[in-house]
């Protein structure tokens, strides 16, 4: 374990290099370029807003901001994990030519997603100004919440990156998980709209807790409940530890499967 960490430290410069080149490659030959990363969540926001405020008449205060915040948090998770999923397979040429720690592509995917969420948060700020919404002082707590979410993303990303090399099925299974997760997370509804028995199960989902906590600190100016914090920290640490163990088991042989 120490050797993995030492190697990581030596090649840390490449983490950001990978993250930046990933963004460049992603938006190559496109006119809007990196702006696409903003257009996509905004379009989703538009659709969800029309459907749920006019057709279903949800009455959630500050609904556009509520929606956008949820979409941004969810996108952070979706982007980070799906970038990581293909991070090793996309670099097969490099990996079979030069040795470097196998964790780097998966971790740099988390950095790529972090760069993207910063842009999205700026858009959220613009929305707040446009709707005349002044956030409470607890908004500052969004930073540790997103940091905790980054830990979750990295914990899921590392095993996904190596598993996808060995079993191509990982990619298809993960896309189902991400789709289902979007509906099972309180992004366009409030968690207490769910029946109790559903709430009892879903409260173990780290993303449910992350999004709920984000709503609390940004919209209501209340501290997240101690339960939320415990559930989130507990489930995320468990996922990260298991994820790291899976990664460690597969990482040595991963090149030979390419």
């Amino acid at each position: 374990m120490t050797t993995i960490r030492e190697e990581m430290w030596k090649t840390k410069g490449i983490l950001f290099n990978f993250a930046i080149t990933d963004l460049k490659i992603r938006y190559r030959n496109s006119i809007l370029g990196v702006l696409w990363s903003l257009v996509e969540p905004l379009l989703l926001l538009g659709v969800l807003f029309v459907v749920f405020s006019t057709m279903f008449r949800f009455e959630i205060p500050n609904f556009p901001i509520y929606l956008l915040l949820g979409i941004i948090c969810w996108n952070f998770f979706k982007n980070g994990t799906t970038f990581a999923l293909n991070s090793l397979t996309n670099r097969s040429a490099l990996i079979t030519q030069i040795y470097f720690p196998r964790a780097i592509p998966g971790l740099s995917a988390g950095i790529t997603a972090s760069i993207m969420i910063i842009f999205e948060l700026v858009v959220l700020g613009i929305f707040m100004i446009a709707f005349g919404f002044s956030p409470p002082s607890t908004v500052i707590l969004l930073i540790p919440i997103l940091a905790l979410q980054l830990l979750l993303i990295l914990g899921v990303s590392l095993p996904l990156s190596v598993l996808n090399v060995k079993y191509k099925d990982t990619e298809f299974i993960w896309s189902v998980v991400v789709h289902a997760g979007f509906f099972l997370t309180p992004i366009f509804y409030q968690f207490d709209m769910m029946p109790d028995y559903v709430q009892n199960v879903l409260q173990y989902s780290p993303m449910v807790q992350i999004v709920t906590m984000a709503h609390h600190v940004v919209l209501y100016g209340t501290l997240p409940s101690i339960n939320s914090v415990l559930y989130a920290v507990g489930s995320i640490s468990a996922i990260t530890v298991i994820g790291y163990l899976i990664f460690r088991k597969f990482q040595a042989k991963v090149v030979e499967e390419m």
Partner: protein
Amino acid sequence: MSEYAVSVKHLSKKFTLYHEKRDSIYESATSWFQKKRHNETLQALDDVSFNVKHGEIFGIIGRNGGGKTTLLRIISKIYSGDSGSVDVKGTIIPVLALGLGFHPELTAITNIYQSSILLGFKKEEIEKRIGDIIEYAELEKFADTKIKNFSAGMQMRLAFATSVLVDPDILLLDEVFAVGDVAFQKKCFDTIMSFKKRGKAIIFVSHDMTPIKNFCDRVMFLKDGKVGNIGSPEESVSAYIEYLSKKK
């Protein structure tokens, strides 16, 4: 110990080969239910030992699939061996036939940065040398061109230029002259000889016996993963040719 730049002892490596030769849907379905294993193991390297001294050009010859590239990959840590040990003194750069793992969608300059950082160099050091690298590769006009628009020879030139100008202690060359033109080949040979003079070790893999005979100090013939012969270039090359004629 320290007189050797690379020291390989009793190195073995096995690969699992998966065969997916199923002729019908029925067959593939039944084989799945029977859990029949469609694989066998391939002994890519079998108890290989050799040493390379500083200032030596060490050639490796053998048939396709004879374990040459696997051996270079283990020396450069891309693969890990099953048993045995590999000792390397100093920085090492593997230049395999396909370049340095360049990304087709990135420009020459970006790729040089990416590869050199991965090889353990600092950004400032690369910045100082990047002009020289492009000049050596004779690619001044193409510095900002994406690698996907490069010819195989241009990619090889860029890879070779990058690896010699970051000045490693050990250079692994796998079929690097297969795609370069004559003028560039000459330049490469001159560079390799100057490396040798400065006491650096070079491991050189080729199917072309002329450079092997002309440049190498010692040559190892890998015979289906085993050491067939280690000795003077003439000795190993004739052992290899004899083996080939027997096979026929």
